[in-house]
């Protein structure tokens, strides 16, 4: 499904500020796999997502999606197949446009030409039904500007926009981190539901180690631009938070700084 082969990225190469964010990152994801990604700040998690999405080109390595080499495809072309939700709820939706218009934007880009009408009664019903399933009361506010919604509501809209047309790959970058605990839990439940129903291959960055171990089917840990741990199956099921942290510090050969990794 998704295959990363020896990805390398150094920022500000050749200067004193040179910083290697990705070192020989290789990863293979099966179709429908749900991988959680953990690691301290600066470990390269978001950089990895940026590399997959094409925010920048990697210095070396290849990215394959569904067997097709997308290493040098521009960001917006990749975005047709990759859905992405950011930590910041403000990033995924257009605040000055209504819920209906935002969803139409996500929907029509896959379904029609540039001069076709973006809104219709049929689409309105489709969007409303899609929103109604998640019981956030959004289905009655289709004509409301997204800028007036709360962070949690905006994140639901973003999530729906990313999955309205099923993407081949869904990247969630700490998408519940900016929300209050109750809302975060709700968004996680919705995420799980969407991913399961559509069998979407998903990667999710989280700082909540407990949810990293309970969500999805595989967990990888990153540090200093490398994948240092790849857990799945039985090994993962028997993993506890304490053991994971211990393994992490062993791998790093230094004690884990609590400031840098929030305990779930």
């Amino acid at each position: 499904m998704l295959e990363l082969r020896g990805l390398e990225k150094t920022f500000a190469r050749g200067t004193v500020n040179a910083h290697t964010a990705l070192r020989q990152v290789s990863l293979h994801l099966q179709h429908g796999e749900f991988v959680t990604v953990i690691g301290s700040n600066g470990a390269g998690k978001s950089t990895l997502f940026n590399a997959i999405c094409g925010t920048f080109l990697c210095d070396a390595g290849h990215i394959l999606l569904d067997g097709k080499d997308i290493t040098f495809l521009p960001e917006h072309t990749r975005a047709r197949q990759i859905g992405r939700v950011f930590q910041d709820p403000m990033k995924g939706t257009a605040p000055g446009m209504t819920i209906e218009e935002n969803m139409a934007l996500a929907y029509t880009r896959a379904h029609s030409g540039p001069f076709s009408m973006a809104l219709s009664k049929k689409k309105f019903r489709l969007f409303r039904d899609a929103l109604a399933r998640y019981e956030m009361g959004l289905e009655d506010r289709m004509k409301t500007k997204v800028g007036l919604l709360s962070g949690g509501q905006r994140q639901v809209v973003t999530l729906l926009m990313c999955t309205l047309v099923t993407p081949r790959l869904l990247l969630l970058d700490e998408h519940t981190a900016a929300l209050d605990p109750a809302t975060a839990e709700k968004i996680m439940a919705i995420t799980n539901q969407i991913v399961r129903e559509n069998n979407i291959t998903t990667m999710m960055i989280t700082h909540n180690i407990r949810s990293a171990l309970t969500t999805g089917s595989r967990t990888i840990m990153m540090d200093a631009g490398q994948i240092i741990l790849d857990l799945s199956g039985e090994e993962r099921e028997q993993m506890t938070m304490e053991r994971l942290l211990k393994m992490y510090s062993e791998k790093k050969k230094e004690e884990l700084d609590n400031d840098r990794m929030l305990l779930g």
Partner: protein
Amino acid sequence: MALYIVALQEGFLYGILALGIYLSLRVLNLPDLTTEGSFGFGAAIAAITAAAGHPMLSLLFAVLAGAAAGMTTGLLQTKLKIHPVLAGIITMNGLYTVNLMAMGTTNLSIGSANSLFRMLYKCFTLTPYEKKLMGAAAAAVMGLLVLALMILFFKTHLGMCIRATGDNPDMVRASSINADRTKLVGLCISNALVALSGALIVHYSGYADINASSGTLVYGLAAVIIGETIFGRSGPTRGLIAAMTGSVVYKLIVTLVVDWNLFGEYSANMMKLMCAVIVACTLAIPAVRQYGWQKKLMREAKKHA
């Protein structure tokens, strides 16, 4: 009265310019200074085409010329990563020379036989007053037609993408919308509208002047802002209607000032200063309201203390 009817005519013709400014300023969220050049470019191209005996074609060529000007600024911005304001200034400056070279003179008359408005008047036998009414009606039809087209455009998928590009660049970057392309298309349409307005003004006045485009940017800004104070800031349908209305209202205000000689004998020469004052005042309204509200709040608090 005749003065106000002429103002109405001018208001609708310049209203198309206001639509273009609304698109770049409010929808794309890009201050596009190309306007000052593309208005003159449209006028120059329309004037030479019309003077050569092709009045209808002149409008089409002007639109294409405007789109080309917008494209230039757009490419400077997106492909060469030049700051939007600078890109506009560069194009605007270059266009001045292009306009001068295209016209070959600083003032080019198209001849009354080639003016679309005068051609229309000739189809009927009209008194001078009726001619003015006819001109205003024709301008209104043109303006409203373009307005309707633009409203419709912003309901299409492409229009929606252009709106999103101005509304949230972060979102667009992560979605499958090619932000560079939507910006480019937006700037092309915006400047095409501005150039069309310039061309229609040539047909209205009968000549193109190299300096006619100076002040068009502030004019458009004034129209958009006046419109917004009347209609409020909302979606593009309302915004476009507001810009067109703002243009008409602005022209009527200016005519009122000149007609009543509000500033004495200098009234007719005070256009630009007036324009600047109107824009500054309308822009200041929200802040002034805020101060008033704060003052009131403090007074009330003192009363109860």
